[in-house]
Each structure stands twice: as C-alpha cells, then as structure tokens.
C-alpha cells in the first residue's frame, strides 16, 4: 500500500514465487526491488548461493554470503522440502495464489512432482511460469548440465576474450547466469502484462545459452554477413578500442571515429607531441589503421604518467572517449556515483549494521527502485507465508515436524 511517505512501486501487488538459485536469483531481485512481493523458496538445507563467497568479513557462514545477500534483496524467504509430498502440496497451493513462479530447478523437475505448467495452469490460469534452464526446455541439449562457464563457452562469449593463441577466458562475475536472469525478467514482465490484460498466463521458456548467444551479437553479425570470425586479441580489441596503462591502472579508449582522432591530434599538439600527425597524408582513408596506431603510440606515454581518472577527465573535456578501467574498490569512492546518491544503505538488523549496497540499474521517478529489506535468513518467513495461505499454527507445526519445510 502506498502511504504519504512511501511512493508507489511499479510492481505493487505482483506475487512472485522464486524457486531459483545462482542461475536465476537475479531475476527475482529485479522484480522485488521494483516492489513485487517475491518469496524465495529454498530447500531446508539452504540455497547453493549461501555457500558461495565472498562472505561478510570473510567469515564463512551461510547467513553471511554477499552473493546470496545481493541476489535476494527485497525478497521474503521460506523453505520447502520438495522431495516430500507435503512440501510439493504446499508449493501447489502457493502457486494457485501467485501471479508468477520463477524456477531454475532443471528441466522436468516440477513436472516430475506433478507440477507441470499444465497442472499449475489448471489450478491458476493466470499464472506465469518462468523456467530458466541452461539450454531450454526442449532440444538435443535440454538434459545437459549447465553452469556459468559452460554457458559462456557454448554461448560463444568466452571465445571473444583472452590473448590470441592462449585459452579463452570468461567474463568476470557470472555473466552466463546474469544475462539469462535479465532476459527472464524481460520475458516474465511481458507475460505479466499479457496476463493482467487477458487473464491468461503462460509458460516462459528461457535458455541461458541463448541469452549468452544473444549478447554476442556484435560478433555473430560478422559470421552471418561476411563469414568473418572475430577473435580475441588481448587488450587491442581494434574494432572497439584499446586499454592503455596509466600510473594506477588502465583507461579504455577508442580512436575509431575520425572526429575523435582529430581531437586526439589537437591534444597531442597541445602537449608538444604531435610529430607529423598534422600531415594531410593521414587523412587518406587507406592510412586510417596506421594513423590510429601512430596516435596510440604518441598518446601511450602521455597517459602513462597520469592517473586513470585524471586522464579520463582531461580526455573527456576534449571529447576524446577515454574512461577509467575502474576496480570495484574504486567504485565506493567514485565522485560521480556519490553525487548521484547511487549506493543504497541496507539495515542488517541481526548484525546491528547498516551496509551500503550497489544501487539500482535505473531510476524511476514515480515508482523508485528501492531495496525493501535485506535478503531473508534461511526460513525466516516460512510461518508467515503459510499463515497467509490460511493454515492454522497447529497445522503449520505438524507440517514442519513431518519435514515439509
């Protein structure tokens, strides 16, 4: 409910069950931070994400995983044992009252427990069931095991990073999971929009491999158009730019546009380093590759003496596109992010601490992105959620003793 103090949320009133783990939890976070009531359902032993570091103060503890914390902000949490008939029955009852069920338990997992899309829809035609799997619900790889690295490999992304001739390397973090979770959120919200206008839910089948392949489009375009295979080439990713070493790290730069090259030459002139780059011969389009190389050769020593931030500020003043290669430790002190009030303080009541979190990926003026609460403790809201189903405390207690959660 919106009150005088709390603005409305874009996803107010949307009830979501989240049966994912590392491979999809970010999808539910996107919905929860926009106001959906997302209930994370974990096995009684806890999600795998709780056993994934880093941990707060490096103390290994399933209640201190920063990975779990980040992926589950604004959610409530409960446990259900879906290897027990009582647990499955409770999930069925919850799904009958939900708008969305997101799952990444594997192809056939829900159907094997009598909770196929058809069964769920029979009880609740409005339900949107979003299944995030490594390769999709059908096809020759449907039964294959996935993983972040495997998906970055089969999706064509790992190929594109690394030194020529050396092993490919995946992108930092777990992008094989994140791109799928992001696409799952888009697909889910399209289906929600349809369900809220027509009353008809549907099954949303998300393939993580396909999400990665979609993300490699700028390379795939060459394959479909000219047959050229783009290759990794260290930090001279010539079509898009180059990383240059500074005193304290790197800047990313690009001299692929003629106007940027012209401004770079002006900068070199101001620094007394222009050499022969004013020579009209460099304006010949045949000479562009060598011109770019010469600019790089002269700019490299110029930026090597400066910090990456000073370099970027000076270059940007001149409309030359350079930006610092920020470390994650640079970000908490980034003057731009601070000026935007980007970071989000989150109260961790059990620890008596307020911890700053990464802020929103977007700002919505009327329905602000907001972390509603810290990630749930294991089973924190099990009883509350079951009470909302109309179960009496005695019945809840009996189910707990029987091992349903």
């Amino acid at each position, binding site marked *: 409910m919106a009150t005088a103090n709390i603005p409305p949320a874009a996803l107010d009133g949307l009830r979501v069950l989240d049966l994912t783990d590392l491979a999809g939890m970010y999808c539910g976070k996107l919905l929860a931070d926009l106001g959906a009531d997302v209930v994370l359902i974990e096995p009684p032993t806890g999600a795998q994400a709780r056993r994934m570091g880093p941990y707060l103060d490096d103390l290994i503890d399933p209640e201190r995983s920063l990975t779990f914390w980040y992926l589950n902000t604004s959610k409530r949490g409960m446990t259900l044992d879906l290897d027990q008939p009582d647990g499955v029955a409770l999930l069925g009852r919850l799904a009958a009252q939900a708008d969305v069920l997101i799952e990444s338990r594997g192809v056939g997992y829900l159907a094997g427990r009598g909770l196929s899309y058809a069964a769920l829809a029979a009880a609740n035609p409005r339900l949107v069931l979003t299944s995030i799997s490594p390769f999709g619900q059908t096809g020759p790889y449907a039964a294959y095991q996935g993983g972040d690295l495997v998906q970055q490999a089969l999706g064509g992304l790992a190929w594109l990073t690394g030194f020529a001739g050396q092993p490919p390397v995946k992108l*930092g973090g777990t992008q094989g999971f994140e791109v799928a979770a992001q696409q799952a959120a888009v697909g889910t919200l399209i289906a929600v929009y349809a369900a809220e206008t027509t009353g008809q839910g549907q099954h949303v089948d998300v393939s993580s491999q396909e999400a990665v392949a979609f993300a490699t489009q700028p390379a795939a375009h060459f394959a*479909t158009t000219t047959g050229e295979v783009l290759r990794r080439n260290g930090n001279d990713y010539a079509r898009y730019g180059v990383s240059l070493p500074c005193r304290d790290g790197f800047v990313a730069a690009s001299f692929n546009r003629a106007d940027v090259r012209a401004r770079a030459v002006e900068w070199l002139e101001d620094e007394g380093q222009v050499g022969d780059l004013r020579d009209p011969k460099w304006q010949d389009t045949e000479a562009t590759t060598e011109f770019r190389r010469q600019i790089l050769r002269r700019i490299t020593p110029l930026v090597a003496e400066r910090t990456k931030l000073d370099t970027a500020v000076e270059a940007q003043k001149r409309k030359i596109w350079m930006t610092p290669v920020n470390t994650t430790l640079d970000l908490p002190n980034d003057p731009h992010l601070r000026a935007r009030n980007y970071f989000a303080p989150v109260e961790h009541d059990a620890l008596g601490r307020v911890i700053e979190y*990464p802020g929103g990926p977007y700002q919505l003026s009327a329905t602000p992105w907001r972390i509603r609460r810290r990630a749930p403790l294991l089973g924190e809201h099990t009883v509350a959620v079951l009470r909302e189903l109309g179960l009496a405390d005695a019945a809840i207690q009996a189910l707990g003793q029987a091992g349903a959660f």
Partner: protein
Amino acid sequence: MATNLPFEGIRVLDFSWVAAGPFATRFLADFGAEVIVVESGKRSGGLRGQAPMPPGRESPNTSTFFNSANTNKLSITVDMNLPRAQELMRQLATRCDVVVDNFRPGIMARWGLAYDDLVKVKPDIIVASMPMVGSTGPFRHWGGFGTTAFSLSGMLELTGFPESEPLACAIPFPDSSCNPTHFAVALLAALRHRRRTGQGQWIDASQMESTMAAIGPAILQALANGTQAERTGNREGTAAPCGIYRCAGDDRWCAIEVHTTAQWEALCEVMEHAEWRGDPRFRTAADRWANRAALDAAVEAWTTGLDPRTATERLQAAGVPAGAVNDSQDLVDNDPQLAHRAHFFSVPHPEMGQITAQNHAFRLAATPGRLGRAPLLGEHNEDVFGRLLGLSRQEITDLVAEGIIA
C-alpha cells in the same frame, strides 16, 4: 482473449541510435508495440553505418547490426537541427506512450522533448533515457563507445587471469546484454504502473550502473569488506577441475566445471582414470582444489586428443557439465541446440532479399510475438506523418522539399 502481441496499441517514439537503446526497444516492438525510430537521413553514424555489411552492397539499409536491433520497428527521418522538425516531433510525442533516447544528457531538452516539456502536454507520458553515466552527476557529459560501460563498471577489471592484466572483450558486451535488458525491465515496469494507475514517469538508466548490477557481489564485497574481488580466470568458486581446456584442432577448446562428487566420479569414468578417485591428491573437493594444477594438466591430457564437440558429448552423457567454446560461426552453423530453438532466423527484406537476425532468450508459449524485419531508412515517413500527424501528401512533400523530413 489472448493476443499474440501484448503491446498492441502501445506507441514508442524512439530516438535511441546506438546499440543498447535499439536492442531495448526491440523487446517492445517484437511483442506488438509500434516503435517509431527517429533517424536522420543526412547524418551518418549510428547503427546504419556500422559494420558489417555484405561486401559490395553497402547502404544505409544493409547494416546487419541495425537490422538485428530494429526488427518490427518503423523508421522516419527528420533534420532535428530545424525548429520545425523539433515541433513535429513534439506533436508526435503527444500521440505516443513512451519516448526513448540514449543521447548524452541535454539534447532532448534542447529540442523541447525532455520529460519536463512533454509531461505538460501529455501527463501520462513515459520518458526514458539511457546516457552512458546517467543524466545527473559531475561526469554526466562523458561520452563513450562500446567498451565504456564495461570499463567504468568494474567488470573489465574482473575479467582475465590473476597473473595478467584485466582483459576487455572483443565485443561491446554491455550493449547487447545488461544495458538493453535492464532498460527493458524499467520500461515494462513503468508500462505496467501506467496501465494500472494512469501515471507516467521519467526513467534515467545509466549504462555504467546497469552494468555494475551484473557484478553486484563483487561491488558489495568492496562496500562491505573493503576488499577487491580477484580476477579468477575460468574458475567458478573452488570447483575443481574447472576451466577451459585445449582440444584437438586449431584454437579449439572445451569448458568443464565439476561441482559435485557425482560429477567428479563420472568424469573419472569418462576419462578412463578410475584410479584418480583413490588418488590422495584428488580424494575430496578440498584435495582437488589444493591440487588443481595437477588435475588441470591431467584433464587437458584427455581433452587434447578430442575435438570439443566429442569431449562435450561424452562428458555430458555421463552428467558432467561441459561445453565446447563456440566461436560465432559455430553458433550459426554448428550448434544443434541453437538450431533447435531457431535462434538465428531469416526474414524477407526488400533490399537484401533475406536478412538474418537473432531471437531473444525466452519463448512465450501463448504470446510468441513476431519475427519481422527492420525498416528501410525513412520507410514510414508518409505513413507516420500522414496517419499520426494528419498531414496531407502535399504537406509531406513540402516538408521533404524544405529538408525537414530528410
């Protein structure tokens, strides 16, 4: 009644001109929104000038990048330097539900097309911008290129092997992943709110911040612990073996990641090294992690003799997560799963005959959306100016003659 196109009746005025913006509005267009791309017929640049184009057929209509990012949209061309063109776009905006741009901050305001301008004439308008680092803050005027958001976000610094420098990717990764997806989530959420309450709003999506969201745990580590996440190459936590291993052939590789005892035992069996299970170096997960260098060498001795597809199929048949490192040509030609999902699809195109584009990662069973082509440059001038602004054919001809439609 279910419709194939949930956003039928939603109209978007789309000024976004480089990759991340068009990919975001494509999500709406493919599911029924009428997305009108506002272009310049004069100014080159943007995706229409972007490589690759089929050799010998270079034209504003043959960029694969443009054609992939703009499926099912309409195209109009105006010279936004002219006040009359700006006025026409303001009129058109009042007939739209959403206005989108990814210019640097200030340009839409100069044209009278900022949220503050439009909300006065269209109170429920949604205006969404995705500048490189957001619309506010001291660096708001910073420009960039494909790798900018990747570098600013911290993701570039996290990519690569611990013993070498941070590595960028050969493509502008955020442009076709976390930026358009996050932007689309914001647009979809705002559309839902508008449908339920009648309230529009302004969206500011910083490409830097959307990319940071994709490495949240590492940034939370910096904030909470004050420590830098390490570059860990191809490691996944403390799983071992876990990596990308050389296979037979030129520059061919296979990813393998083993997380459980069952997967480890299956791997030993597939590789015909049952004795590894009893080897004290590899007995527990902790042992395997401690002796990962020896383990990696042993695994690579097996993969080196096989092509990556064979290695993948043998390992997966036994339940071991594994996957060939596909290059782009493999994605197009050699991946049976992507072929099964028809990830690459072809549609007719007036200038090219056929064009190939890539599908999203989701399939919606009841409202599958539509596969279509991108518009030719200015293809819908007559339609949009006539149908939506009520201009006569003569008036449109005059606007063309005056260089306003251009």
